[in-house]
């Protein structure tokens, strides 16, 4: 997402983003009965820092429980698995890093910033399938903005955000060069006009 602070309506601030991640961490622990078999994989770009933060939140939340500790964190690049090649400007693939090199026996939590059409997640499932066979795959997103084009839904959602198609959801994170964490809705048409 864009590094500069966009002008638009701010939906989530830094504190709310952190709170969402902590809540998601608790939901993950509850559903998976602990964190021992988990692996967190962030989808570049926005999902990578969120995956790191979620792992930290999971470590905090699991304190005192059996098998506590930060789950391994990696990144999953989906560029080569996209089905919309040629519709967007070229993307340079980023490295995929799978901690421990195997998905066997793991429950993979995919992390992305915004869930929109669902096509990114479809590509991520293909990419994951090429690497190996995970026991289960779950999806955590910071923002679900609707407009799905595929039968895909998230298991954990930071905030459901009904939007119109002409709007754009921008997730700014300090790790990606933003001044402060924020989720903003920008009207794509006015953004074009002011450019």
């Amino acid at each position, binding site marked *: 997402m864009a590094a500069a602070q966009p002008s638009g309506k701010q939906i989530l601030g830094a504190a709310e983003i952190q709170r969402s991640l902590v809540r998601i961490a608790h939901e993950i622990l509850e559903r998976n009965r602990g964190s021992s078999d988990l692996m967190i994989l962030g989808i570049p770009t926005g999902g990578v820092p969120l995956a790191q933060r979620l792992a930290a939140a999971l470590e905090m939340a699991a304190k005192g429980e059996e098998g506590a500790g930060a789950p391994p964190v990696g990144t999953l*690049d989906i*560029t*080569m*698995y*996209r089905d919309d*090649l*040629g519709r*967007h*400007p*070229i993307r*340079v*693939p*980023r*490295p*995929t890093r799978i901690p421990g090199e195997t998905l066997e026996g793991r429950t993979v939590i995919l992390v992305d910033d915004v869930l929109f059409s669902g096509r990114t997640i479809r590509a991520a499932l*293909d990419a994951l*399938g*090429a*690497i*190996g066979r995970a026991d289960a795959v779950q999806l955590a997103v910071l923002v679900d903005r609707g407009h799905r084009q595929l039968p895909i839904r998230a298991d954990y959602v930071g905030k459901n955000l009904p939007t119109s198609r002409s709007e754009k959801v921008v997730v700014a994170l300090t790790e990606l060069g933003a001044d402060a964490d924020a989720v903003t809705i920008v009207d794509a048409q006015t953004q074009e006009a002011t450019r």
Partner: protein
Amino acid sequence: MKHLLSAKDLSHDEAVMVLDTAEAMAATQRHAVKKLPTLRGKTVVNLFFEDSTRTRLSFEAAAKRLSADVINFSAKGSSVSKGETLKDTAQTIMAMGADAVVVRHSACGAAHLLAHAGWIDVPVLNAGDGTHQHPTQALLDAMTLRRWYAPGGPASGSARAADGAPAPQGRDLEGARVIIVGDVLHSRVARSNVDLLTTLGARVTLVAPPTLLPVGMDDWPCEVSYDFDAAIAAVEPDAVMMLRVQRERMSAAGGGFFPSPEEYSRGYGLGAVRRTAMPEHAIVMHPGPMNRGLEITADAADDPRSRVVEQVGNGVSVRMAALYLLLADEGNQL
């Protein structure tokens, strides 16, 4: 990037981007499933007017790993030997629904002609045109060097030696010193490497007997030496790249560029003594196929610092990157 015709056309940032993409491609080749769905439904035509098994296989492997269909065309035994022109061949290929053309031709500029004559309007990848250019070879050499050269490496005593692990994204070859030895006159590999390595910040020294250097190379961005040993001592190279010398060039009929294989070997071959004179961390490269005993001894070819086999593997990754970048961006300029 519409075509990949010459290493000279690549800007610094474009070259780094291709290398970064190639590293990402190499990483996918360690997965359980090596095949990527990226170019599914696309057709790549390998148009080879000149024999080249390894380059064709490399391009074919790259296209297939990206799920593209591959049509191989070789001029031998085709209508070209019956007098069909490049234009007719190109248009025939287009009619078959090609999405990209990989072309190898013995004439300099054939790839450029194919790309710009208006006969076809798909990306053209130059897989070697005469003595002119061979950009993917230069890119794979740069990828190999980028893995084994650490900026401020052991020569300066500050950092550890590069261990051949995938290079970090965005790295160039600033400060690397490379010696390219052999038949520069007939070598598209040398030309492409001088262009690309210089763009990436490396310092290139060409070493060859005077008869095997082209005229009018004053504006080439490199240094030239006739003395291999003096060059090793003066440059302290991070890599030495040996070029293939064709035996037929020795006879008077082939041009008589040098008197005898023995004499060439003594002056410009890489053997144990010169290998020892090179810095310990320096790698040995060769575009293949090697003439063992002529430009490189078996010892030097099988030296632990020899990266010849690795270059072949990197070739597939680089060609995957090139095909991806050319076919994926349909109309979107870089």
